[in-house]
Every structure is written in structure tokens, then in C-alpha cells.
């Protein structure tokens, strides 16, 4: 689960991974920016920025990855029953507390 950050300074150098591209900041050229977008210009990350920034994040830390749902857990029927029992019990006790609270107001 604990994968090292991509190209992070402590991580071993990535083999066959990212390399400077045409238009990257390393070469001093203008980065490529999508022109056909309705989004404000300041929200669009430049490619070169992306190259530099991504190396400090773990792959599964990117927003696009965290928005991907995790697999649904398969609970046994006993576990489901136990959880529902606890849930209903907590609701009943909460209602008792709320009832006592309302009665005490008067």
C-alpha cells in the first residue's frame, strides 16, 4: 500500500518513467495549455507545472484517483445483522435522550 512518491527525492529513480518532454520548463519553452476550455485560465495547470508537482504526490493521492470509488466490502449476514442491531439500538437510545430532554424543558 505504501508506494513511494513518484520521482520523489528519496525514492529510487524511476526507470522508464517520466522524462523531460518537448515544451517542458526544463527546456525553457512555453508549456502546452489547453485552449479550448471554458475554465478560468488560472485553474488550468501548465504541463510543466504538472511534471514538477506530480513528483511530490503518491499516485493514489491525486484528486482524480481519490474520486475513484473503492471496492464495496462484502459483509456476512451476521455482520450486517449486528450492524443494523447496533444502529437501531443507538437510534432508540437517542430518541430516549431527546424525549427526556423535551420533557425536562417543561
Amino acid at each position: 500500500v505504501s508506494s513511494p512518491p513518484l520521482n520523489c527525492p528519496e525514492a529510487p529513480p524511476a526507470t522508464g518513467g517520466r522524462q523531460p518532454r518537448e515544451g517542458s520548463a526544463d527546456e525553457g519553452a512555453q508549456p502546452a495549455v489547453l485552449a479550448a476550455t471554458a475554465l478560468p485560465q488560472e485553474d488550468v495547470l501548465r504541463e510543466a507545472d504538472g511534471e514538477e508537482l506530480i513528483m511530490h504526490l503518491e499516485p493514489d493521492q491525486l484528486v482524480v484517483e481519490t474520486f475513484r470509488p473503492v471496492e464495496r466490502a462484502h459483509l456476512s449476514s451476521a455482520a450486517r445483522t449486528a450492524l443494523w442491531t447496533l444502529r437501531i439500538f443507538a437510534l432508540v437510545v437517542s430518541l430516549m435522550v431527546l424525549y427526556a430532554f423535551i420533557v425536562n424543558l417543561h
Partner: protein
Amino acid sequence: MPMKGMPMSTPEIAAPAPLLRQPRLTDEDAARSRDRSRVHHARRHRKRWHLMWLLVGPGILAMLGENDGPSMIAYASDGAQYGLGFFVPFIPVLFAMAFVVQEMTMRIGAVTHRGYGELLLQRYGPVWGWFGAGDLVLTNLVTLIAEFVAIRVGLAYFHLGAGVAVGLGLALVLFTLGGGRYWHWERAVLGLAIFNGLFLVAAILVKPHLSALASSFSFSPFPHGSVNTLLLLLASTIGATVTPWMIFFQQSASADKGLTPDDVRHGRFDTAVGAVLAGVFGVGALVAGAALLPHNGSGIQGFAGAGFPQALDHIAGGAAGTVFALGLIEAGAVAILTISASTAYAAGECIGVSHSFNTSPRNAIVFYAASVGVALIAAVVILIPGAPLLSIALNANVLAAVLLPVSLVFVLMLANDRKLMGAWTNRRATNLVAIAVIAFVGLCGTAYGVDSFLQSVHVISS
């Protein structure tokens, strides 16, 4: 508005035949990456203290946020009614319990990079996710009302009214949200939270007998009174220490901060420091309250007026009263910020939209609206003439304690989920302690709920 599965603001970058397809990045990624670059730099250059400074935050905020207005008044009230015995060792025990729970949430957030709400919803289904969010919103709303009441009590000492309390609370929420970065929000709230130490100053100012303080560690004398009173005392003190919002907050904040499994050790330190500070400051409020014991302290109505600060003013001098009043204002203010943040995280996570301080308000409307909205609703309630603020504040902690066991069970399940946590699942000893915590919290909350109900329907006498 960006929805689940969509990047927040940035479309795919058009690159000329890349060697490796680059993931789509957002401004949230950019902000988090800048924070992480500083962490990597500090780690690479072995700057231990700088690394610690960069990684602390969510744990201290969760713990000091829980040392909120109602909690500090509950501790002071315990001291004023029963003295130091039992509570001086009991409060640290409760914060040790809180550490066990909060360490799990920090670890889950750092390993999965997801908040409690979204993980619950995705892993166990929408019913459980929405139940959890519903519990949170209910307890948060009630607790936030109590926070505004605490600020009002503190300000009343300085002859300022409810309108100022509302204005101050809302202004703080808006001010801290204005930074546009998680880092800025966290540091602003941490700076404010340090003033929770005012309760320790108040304790010193009342000049407690050190021998009495030392002898109280024997858990005696046990508080006297009716069974219902003792159960209320236990349930409200537990509810003052471990609550549903802390679970949501620390897990989401750890993910938002960008913690990774490499940072778990520092996350534990952060949580432990928070627990120690909160325990010490909580005992400070207890000791300050205990100074009122020989002076009919049990008769003080903390929410009816200036309450404890005014009483301390008479007994221990103006400085003690002023410090305690300022402490109440700080405790309420920090809790308003952290509790409204936990509501915002839960709303964003359960609806499936952007939920990060690293996102601009334009791209995370639900997140920012929930943060301000819940504080606004609570603020409006305390302006209603004749609202039962005292009862609301006293029952806030109890309600949190009653609803807590369900959240704790899911935290335990997530922390033991090998598919999610891999090598970072709970150890056997952690599970045993966590189960004991759940049983204890559940037992105390249930006992109080049942006892109160039976009294209210006159099945048993009070």
C-alpha cells in the same frame, strides 16, 4: 460543479505524444504537492524539527477542538460540584481513549487518502454513509449551538452580548476560509488553539493545594449523588472527550493535508501531543472550577450569565476570571472552526463533490457552503429569545456519546480492512483496547439514556 469521477477544474493537458500518459492534475493537487515538496525536502535534509512542524496539525486540532466550550464548562462544573478527586485521573484516561480512536482515523486517512464519510459510503454502501453523515450533522449542529453559547458566556464577563458572539464566530469562520489553502487554514486555527492553555493559567491563578492535587490521583473520593446524576456526569464527560466530529475531522484533515504512510509515525506524535495538551488543559479547567467547591460552586449556572468567570473573579481575583472568560471564548471559537470543517468534509464526501481547503470556493461550493451554513444556523438559534440554551448545551455531549459507538465500530472495521490498509491494519492489542473503549462509551451512554427516559415517564424516581 465537479462531480465524482471528474477532475475538479483542469482538463487533460494536451501534450505532444507523451512517453507516459500524465494524470490529470487539479489546483487541489498543485496546492497539496507544494506542501508535500516541503515535507520531502525536510525529510531528505534530515531537518527533524522542521519536518515535525510541517506534519503536526490534524491531531492537535482534533484534540484541542474537543476541549470546546461545553467540555471546559463540564470539567469546571465537575470540579465545582465534586472537587478534584476521581476526575483528575479520569480525564487523562478519557484522552488516552481518544488517542486510540484518533490514531486509527489518522492512519486510515494517511493510508487511503480518503475521509471517513466517503470511505464509509463507498466501502459499506450509501445507507451507512448517510447514517454516519446524519449523526454528524445532528450532533454538530447541537454542539455548535453550545459553542456559540460558550463564547456568549465568555463575552458576558466583559459585558458584551449575544450579537457580538455571533459576529465573532461567523467572522472567524469566514476569515479562516479565506486563505484558499489547507495549510493556511490549519496554521490559523492552530495559532488560535494554543490559547486553550489559558485554562492552565486559570488553574495556576486559583493557587490550588498541590497535596490535594497529588492525592486526587487515587481516583477518590468517588462522586456522590443519585445514579442519574452520576450517569449524566460520566456520559457528558465521555462526550466531552470523544465525539463523532473528531473522527470525521481528523481522517479528512489527514487526507487533505496529504499525509502518507511514511508520515504515520509523525501523525501518531501529533495525536499524542494533542491528547496530552488537551488532558492537561482539561484538568486546568477542573482545578479552576474546584476552587469554587468551598464557595457553593455546585450552585453556579454556567450558562445563565457570566457564571464561572464571574464566580472565579470573586473567589480568586479578576485575573482568574478574565483568563477563564478568554479561555471560554477561545474554546468556543476553535471548536466552531473545526466542527464546521468536519461538517463541510462530510457534506462534500457524501455528496461526492470536491471537499478540500485546497480548492477554491468556486470549485467546491458545497464544501464552503456547508462550513459557513452550519455555523450560521447555530448562530441564528442562539439569537432566538427564550431558546433553551442551557439544556441544549448540557445535552450536546450526551447525544454525542450515545451516537458514538456506531461510528467507532466502523472506524475499527476500516482500520482492520486489509484490502484498504494493507500492512497498516490494526494490531491485536489496538483492537482489544478499541473494543473496550466502544463497550465503555456504549454502556455509559445507554445507561444514561435509559435512566433519563424511565425517569421522564415516572417509572423510576429521580
